[in-house]
């Protein structure tokens, strides 16, 4: 335990004295203060996009799902012709028909059974509406959120877009990725390159303790930054629920980061490896889906649902962690794989 504490303290001192890592600590705090100050202005900025939906009564859930999509105002239409007429009259930009029984998979852009009719004079609005419809349909594909949306519809409550929660989520995601995928592997790669790793082993430190120290450092940094960000913006009561969403992902990134650092030889190579890992895991985390490749990555790294869960938590409508058991399980699997590869490689290097 004393060894672990010494190693974590060393990494903390080392990190905060290097400019790029200092920036990593300072930027979230500045971001938190900025969000706090600007949030009231930002929440007033959404620009609604009108959309007419023609659907059979059984598609009420879908209608509500669309209504839940941020920046989207949904107008119900009695049938497809009426919806088209609303577009022609420029009351809405897009008409969409959602036949009964429509189900879509993650990452699919509107399935062929969905009809879209848009105002060609408003291409950007159409693109935005199309993306939102896609995202809304993905939500509907998940039973629990669909039920939640239906309940919201029944009660008549609105669900305004929370820009502050969105910005905190983005800042946290960056902080999380930066810690696990960059800071941890780069410090380790530099230690290997300069001979610190060998000096620590010669001082009698075991490989297991060295890796545990790095993991503890990564998780501590994540906790520190997340606590600062969430605490300063959403209040102290939101910190713990947010951490429950963040730490499994952090553990996954730290495990992958350690494996990356030990599979390469130099810090430069570690930077390249970390950048590749970050690209792979970050894109689906921010919902950039659409192509089959991205869809596959989104399935492999199910960060988007967790990201949504984090935002829901920050908006005060959090769900129990059990709702994300599948995604958490996958992330813990990656963490275990990362630590296993790192342990195997470190033992090889030590011997």
């Amino acid at each position: 335990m004393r060894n672990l504490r010494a190693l974590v303290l060393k990494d903390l001192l080392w990190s905060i004295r290097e400019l790029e890592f200092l920036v990593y600590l300072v930027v979230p705090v500045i971001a938190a203060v900025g969000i706090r100050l600007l949030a009231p202005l930002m929440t007033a900025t959404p620009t609604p996009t009108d959309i007419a939906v023609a659907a059979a009564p059984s598609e009420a859930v879908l209608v509500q799902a669309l209504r839940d999509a941020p920046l989207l105002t949904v107008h119900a239409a009695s049938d497809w012709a009426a919806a088209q007429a609303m577009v022609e009259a420029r009351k809405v930009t897009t008409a969409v028909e959602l036949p009964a029984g429509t189900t879509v998979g993650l990452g699919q852009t509107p399935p062929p059974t969905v009809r879209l009719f848009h105002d060609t004079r408003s291409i950007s609005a159409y693109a935005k509406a199309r993306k939102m419809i896609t995202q809304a349909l993905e939500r509907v594909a998940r039973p629990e959120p669909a039920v939640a949306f239906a309940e919201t519809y029944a009660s008549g409550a609105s669900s305004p877009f929370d820009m502050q929660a969105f910005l905190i989520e983005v800042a946290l995601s960056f902080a999380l990725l930066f810690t696990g995928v960059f800071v941890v592997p780069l410090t380790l790669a530099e230690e290997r390159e300069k001979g610190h790793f060998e000096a620590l082993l010669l001082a009698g430190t075991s490989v297991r303790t060295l890796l545990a120290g790095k993991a503890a450092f990564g998780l501590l940094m994540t906790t520190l930054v997340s606590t600062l960000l969430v605490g300063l913006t959403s209040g102290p009561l939101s910190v713990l629920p947010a951490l429950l969403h963040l730490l499994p992902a952090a553990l996954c990134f730290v495990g992958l980061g350690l494996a990356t650092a030990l599979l390469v030889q130099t810090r430069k190579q570690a930077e390249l490896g970390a950048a590749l890992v970050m690209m792979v895991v970050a894109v689906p985390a921010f919902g950039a889906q659409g192509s089959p490749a991205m869809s596959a990555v989104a399935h492999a790294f199910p960060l988007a649902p967790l990201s949504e869960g984090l935002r829901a938590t920050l908006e005060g409508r959090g769900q129990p962690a059990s709702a994300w058991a599948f995604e958490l399980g996958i992330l813990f699997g990656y963490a275990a794989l990362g630590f296993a590869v790192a342990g195997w490689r470190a033992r090889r290097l030590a011997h």
Partner: protein
Amino acid sequence: MSAIHTHALTRRFGDVQAVAGIDMQVERGEIFGFLGPNGSGKTTTIRMLTGRLRPTSGRIEVLGHAIPDERDALYPRAAVVGESKDLYERLTGRENLNLFADLRGVPRSQVDAALQRFALADRAHHAVRGYSQGMRQRLLLARAFLSQPDLLFLDEPTRGLDPASARALRAAIRQINGQGCTVFLTTHLMEEAEQLCHRVGLIAKGRLVAQGTPAALRAAHGERALHLTTAEGRARLALDDPQTPDRVRAALAAGAVQHLTVDAPSLEDVFLKLTGEALDAEAPDGHQTPDREAPDHA
């Protein structure tokens, strides 16, 4: 029981024989110098002795422990001073020592004593990146000596130091040895070995060509000579040449002698005679052994 004992120690890197069948014995309490030119296999040997590199063949016993299998038992009793770049540059001198004190289970009070002892107390709270090369080497020694090891490995300890810093470092090494610590140091500096070491081993192209006290090696392999300086120039006369006495006598009778000295052979001369190469020579191409090659690449 000897501090270090190796038998037929061999290490190959692919086609390159870095260390070839070294039989060596280092007694407890002595300073043993491992003398050879750059790339001769010194660092590879020290890495095998400390268990960081597995030998291709041969046996190693250090402080009674079979290495590398029992290296974990060795580490609390031994310390290694390698290159100064393995110091944490962004940490202060004190923080560097605190880290290793904690890892070795040494009380923090020893850190203050080490800083005083190696004349680093004044700069203890400065980041190591601002230290001179001499201070870095002293800090490495302080770090290594924190746990009062029985055996200290020093890999080229005065490399890159100015003469004054090198002298101070040698004094520190003697002081450490005076407290009963066995010192195994590698160097390519003949003077350093002569000044510091009780015994030396001469290594060339991975082979140990001789070992013993500097005096014994000089006596066994060196050639003593007279340097005779006259108005006509300087002449080197071998002492065991039967014509030398007559030539000196003749020069003295003629009153031509300006300067006459007995030239004792140096370890450099011994090394040159035994290996045919100078100590400051680089290893030929293909024989340079990597300092920090990844062990699993071998």
